Every structure is written in structure tokens, then in C-alpha cells.
């Protein structure tokens, strides 16, 4: 049996799909994107099937472009199958769930490997690659990274003053931290996170986003208190979390955002 990994995308795949695949000699295996071991399955997989459109944040979503980008690097020799009820969608790798009996075992043979797939025509649902760009866009109101960047700037400056310049924290808090209104900025970050996070639950970045969510929980209390507590700043734990979050976000950006970052000094 050939193994095809299945991303159901917030909906249950019909049993008929499993049954038909079995007839073709295909074993469909659901994967849990919130656990980071699913990537191990790619090695032995014949393909990866997306149930389209995916459903998240009360909207139909299209994660195909993100999956295509991911698989082209991680597993270019497998097939990316787009399964949907969208009969008018013409693509060699599209599987129309309403007409399963029209397909045969040979159809799987003529599916393109993801490494050879060209750009895709528009699908139903919000294009998540576009959303991801907004996620990282520098100045716009939608950018989650912009808010985090402003928080990190203050924390970085305050940490330096405290550890390198031996400036009393009272003074740092009064002149730098308090005017920066970290609690409010953190709420803003949270709000934007809540808006974005569900969108990417069925994408290859879900695992990383889950890790970021866990890490930021650790600084929640300090942020909510507006950065009054000196100790987490002095021991560097706050800055460490923010730096790690930033690193993970940069990894995502480097991998998925078409217009790459320019790191002027790295």
C-alpha cells in the first residue's frame, strides 16, 4: 500500500474517500499538524492530500501555495493532491471528491511531483500566502511582527541599560518602559495573534506557531503588568523569549514569504 498523508483542514474527510483510496492501493493517514513529528512521515509518503478549502477562523481558506512551497523543499518527490468538491477546478493533481469513481490507479501515476508543479490557479478560500505576507508586513496595522518588534525594541533597550549600564530600574521604568505602555502593546499583540493563529492551523507552519504560542505564555504575566518587575528583565528571560519568538518568525518568513527579508547586518 502506498501511504498518502491527509490534511483534513478542519473538516472530516468522507469515508468514501478512504474506501476509494484503499481500492487504488492508497492508505490515507491523517496527520496532526500541531505535533512536530508529522514531518517524519513525509519520508515514506507517496503523496500529501489536502482537503480543500480548509476551514479556520470562520472562513474558507486556501493553504495550497504554502504547502506547495513547503513540500518543494522538504519532499519534492511526493505528490501534492488537492481534493475538493470543486468540480470546475482543472489541474492534473486535483481530485474531485464528487466523482471519485471516474479516477483510476493510473491517475495517481500521472499526477505531477510537487517539485515539478507550476503555480496554481486560484482556489476557493482566502489565499494564506497573502495573509502570511500581511502577518510579516512591516508597518501596516495587520502586522503581528510589527507589534512584537516594538515590544522587543523596548525590552532590548531596557535590558541593556540594566545589565550593561547599571542604570537603576526605577529610572529605566520611568523613562523607557512605562511610556512604552507594554501591557497595551501586549494586548494588541495578543489580539492580532488570535486573529492570525487559527488561519494557519492547517498549514505547515502550524507547528511553529504552536511553539510560539507556548513561549509567549511565559511572558504573559510580565507583559500584562507593564514590565514593572525588574528580575525577568535582569536575568534576560524576557528578552530570550522574545528573541526566540523572533527567530522562529524569521524562519517562517524566510521559508514562506516570497519577498525575502533583508537582514542588513547578518
Amino acid at each position, binding site marked *: 500500500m502506498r501511504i498518502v498523508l491527509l490534511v483534513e483542514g478542519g473538516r472530516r474527510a468522507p469515508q468514501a474517500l478512504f474506501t476509494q483510496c484503499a481500492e487504488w492501493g492508497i492508505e490515507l493517514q491523517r496527520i496532526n499538524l500541531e505535533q512536530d513529528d508529522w514531518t517524519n512521515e513525509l519520508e515514506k509518503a507517496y503523496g500529501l492530500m489536502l482537503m480543500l478549502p480548509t476551514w479556520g477562523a470562520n472562513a474558507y481558506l486556501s493553504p495550497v501555495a504554502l504547502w506547495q512551497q513547503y513540500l518543494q523543499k522538504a519532499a519534492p518527490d511526493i505528490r501534492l493532491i488537492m481534493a475538493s468538491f470543486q468540480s470546475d477546478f482543472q489541474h492534473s493533481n486535483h481530485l474531485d471528491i464528487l466523482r471519485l469513481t471516474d479516477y483510476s490507479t493510473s491517475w495517481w501515476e500521472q499526477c505531477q511531483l510537487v517539485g515539478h508543479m507550476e503555480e496554481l490557479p486560484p482556489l476557493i478560500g482566502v489565499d494564506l500566502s497573502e495573509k502570511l505576507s500581511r502577518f510579516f508586513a512591516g*508597518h501596516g496595522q495587520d502586522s503581528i*511582527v510589527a507589534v512584537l518588534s516594538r515590544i522587543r*525594541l523596548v525590552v532590548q*533597550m531596557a535590558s541593556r541599560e540594566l545589565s550593561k549600564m547599571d542604570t537603576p530600574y526605577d529610572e529605566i521604568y520611568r523613562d523607557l518602559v512605562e*511610556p512604552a505602555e507594554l501591557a497595551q502593546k501586549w494586548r494588541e499583540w495578543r489580539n492580532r495573534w488570535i486573529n492570525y493563529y487559527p488561519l494557519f492551523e492547517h498549514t505547515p507552519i502550524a507547528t511553529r506557531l504552536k511553539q510560539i504560542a507556548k513561549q509567549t505564555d511565559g511572558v504573559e504575566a510580565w507583559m500584562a503588568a507593564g514590565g514593572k518587575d525588574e528580575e525577568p528583565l535582569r536575568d534576560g528571560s524576557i528578552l530570550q523569549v522574545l528573541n526566540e519568538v523572533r527567530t522562529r518568525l524569521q524562519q517562517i518568513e524566510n521559508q514562506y514569504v516570497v519577498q*525575502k*527579508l533583508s*537582514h*542588513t*547586518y547578518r
Partner: protein
Amino acid sequence: MSSKNYHILIVDDDTEFHQQIRYAFRRQFLFSGAVNEQQLFQKLEEESDFDLLLLDLVLDDTEAKKGLDLIPQVVSQYPELPVIIVTGDRSIDTVVTAMKLGAKNFLVKDDFDFDYWEQRFTEVIEGSKLKQENRELRAEVDRRRALENEAYPFIGESPQIKEIKRILKLVSEEPDVTVLITGETGTGKEVAARYLHAHGARSKGAFQAVNLSAIQDTLLESTLFGHKKGAFTGASRDMEGYFSQANHGILMLDEIGDIDQNIQIKLLRFLETKLIRPVGSDQDIHLDVQVVTATHRDLSAAVQQGRFRADLFQRLKAMVIELPPLRARRDDIPLLLGHYFQEPDLSKVMTEGALEAMLEYSWIGNIRELKNAVSYAQLRARIQDKKLIDERCLPVEILNSEPIIPVVMQGNPAGGEMGAAPAASPASPKNIDEEHALIDLDRIEKLLIQKNKVKKDVAIAIGLENTDNLRYRIKKHFDKHPHLFANFPTISQSYRRIVKL
């Protein structure tokens, strides 16, 4: 210089960012802020001492990158003010565009790193200041060169001088041709060379003039071509020679007829290959120098006598400019007097009699002698409290403008008077070189007597810079023509260490 003195203008619609940057760099820099385009130009109008502009690209709630439009405006209106972009936008297109428009660096807010940012601010400011200083220094060098050339005006409206100026202008368009300027001493050979420099393609380059006869033979090679540390005793460091200093410019070698065979060979090599080799070096250096040579000697005769290489002479005479003696262009004397008196209307500074005497004088020392005579006459007029220079203010040799011929001092030489008729020539000069030496020594002898043996006054009267030059001149005459000195007892007495009869 402490970086605290640098004044930075931040332009960002995010006032919080202003405060944070001010706080973080408060020990390093002074800050002013603007939140939009209007405030930016207002600040720049009001204060001119900003050293750096930190410019955000997005200056309002829209996504428009107005900062990109501002870069060329700032760069054109305030070219000395460097711009660093500090923004949240990190797309490559934006970076490239900003840098092309004239930004000096591009910093992303999300990448904030105190040390890195401080380093960039300082580097850009100091780099810009360095460029500015370079520009100012270059302008100063150009200004000084222009002034220097102005200090050596090529004065003359006589047909001969007009023609020479015309030729020099034509030659100046050929920046690689070797020029030989001939003429009696004091005829303005350096002035002509500077005229060539000022009007030619090399006017932006250096002009170096060196009087070869004033440099000891043993030092000439290193003076011209430079030397490496340790090349000889006393060479404690590498030293550039005149050739290197004149790179991309003009090197004028005055008294070229006086150099020895060794230097002649090296000069010939340079003219043929444009290469020099400093003393003690094993490396050749390629230089772009136009060589202008000058001499009062007859180089053809020197070649015939085997004292000057024929091949070098052939190279040097690619373009020969012969400057006429002043007595051959007397029309220019009033112009020159007007220049040196700084008064074109000569009737305001001298009597007709004095002018007439100067017009009739033979000026064997040519313009240099005329210049010295003017200084002398001005001083005498002040001493005698005269408003106008009259004949009595003029140097005695002008008043007694008999042709100068060699003298043989008889009896008590110190008691002889200037202008006293010489008894007879010691012997007919063997050649033109000896004749010249005779004339020169005769003049020095007379002046020594006239100036009570004050060598400094004699040197000045002849137009030499100092007594060393006078001593060297006498030594050269003695080395070549020792037999002549029997006729010049004052010189022999004054220079006992040199003249050993």
C-alpha cells in the same frame, strides 16, 4: 572627538520611537525630531548643524513610502547631510531603491542592536565628514594652486611674449610632451612653466619646481626619485621624491644642464618608460608626470663637449621654448615695474629719470634682477624719505649701466669701487661655459665689495634664495674653473674654505 557632539535628526511619525532612540543613545548623540515632511524641512532650515538624518519611510497611517521621495530632496538640498533609513520595511526592493536614491545605510527597526546601530551612525557621520573634508581640502589645494600661479604671472605684451604665450597654450593641450625652456637666468622660465601648468590639462595636478643646481650632487638622485628607508646613511624612513610628488602634474627641472651623467640616464629612462626607481628600492614605480626642463646653458654645446647625453637632449627638445632676455623686450619693462610696484601708473611711484635709467639698463639678471631692484629702490626711497623713487634710489649698477665685462682686480681689491673699469681680462674664455662663469663671478665680486661682503645681501641682489645657494654657485664655478678665481680676490677671501688657490 566624542560622538556625543554629533547631532542627529530623527524623522518618524512614531513619536514613541523618537523617545526610545533618544533614551538608548542619550550618552552618545544629541537628537532632534520631526514627525513629517513639513517638520523635517523646517528643522533643516532652522538648524544647520545636523550630522545625520534618520529617516523612516512610512510617515503617516497610509502604506505610502513618502520617505523614499524625501531622500533625493534632502540629498540635493543638503548634500553634506548623510541619510540613514530606519524603518520597519525590510523588502529588498525598498532597500535597493533607498540606497540608489542616496541613503547611506538602511536599518530595520526589528533588527535593533545597540552596538551595531551606534557603529553605523558614527561610521556614516564620520565617513561623510571625511568626504566633506576631502572636498574642502581639494578645493583649498585648487585655490592655493590658482593663487600660486597668480603669484607668478607671466607679464608681458611684447610680440615675443605674446607669441610664447600662444605657443604655451597650444603645448598645454599636449599633457605628455616634454618641454625645454631656455633663456638667460631670471628671464622667467619657472613663470613660463607655471603658465603652461595653469592653462593645461594638468592644471588640477601638482606643479613642482626644483632647481637642480641648488641640490648637492650626492643628494640629487634621492631628492628626485625618492629613497627607501636604510638606502643610505641617514635614510631613516621612506621618502618620496619630486617625481612622485608631481604625479599627475608637472615637474619642472631647472638648470637641467647641470646634472651629472648618472641622473641623466635615470631621467632618460623615465622619459622613455615613465618608470622611476627610488634609491634602495627593487621596485619600479609608474608615474604620470609631464617634465618641463629649463636651462640657461647651451645644451647643444654641452652635448658636443660630451657633458650632456645626446639621446637625453633629443628627448628634452621635443618642444623648445626660448625666453628672450629682458633687454630684448624693453617694452615690457614698464609693465613689469607696474606689477612689482603694484601701481600701473609709474609716474606715481618714480621719477622720469629713474624710469629712464631702468629702461636703459641692460638687466643681465633679467626680471629677477628687476624685481630685486624694485625692492631695493622702494627701501632706499623710504630711507631717504622720498615720495617718488629717483635715480639716487636705484642700485648703483643701474646708474652705471656700462656693459658688464670681466674685471681683474688690481692693487687693493677691497678699495676698488663698483663700476671701476677693469684692467684686462685674465684671458679669453675658452668656451661659453667659462665665459658665463666669468661674468657671474665678476658680478658677485662687485656685489661683495658693494655690500661690504655681507653674503646675504649679495645673494638677495643676485636673486638667490639664501647664502647656501650663493656658496654652492661659487663652489661649482671653482670646481670647473679654479683658474678664474685668481682674478676675484674678494670672492676668494670670502670663501676661503672653497677657493683654495
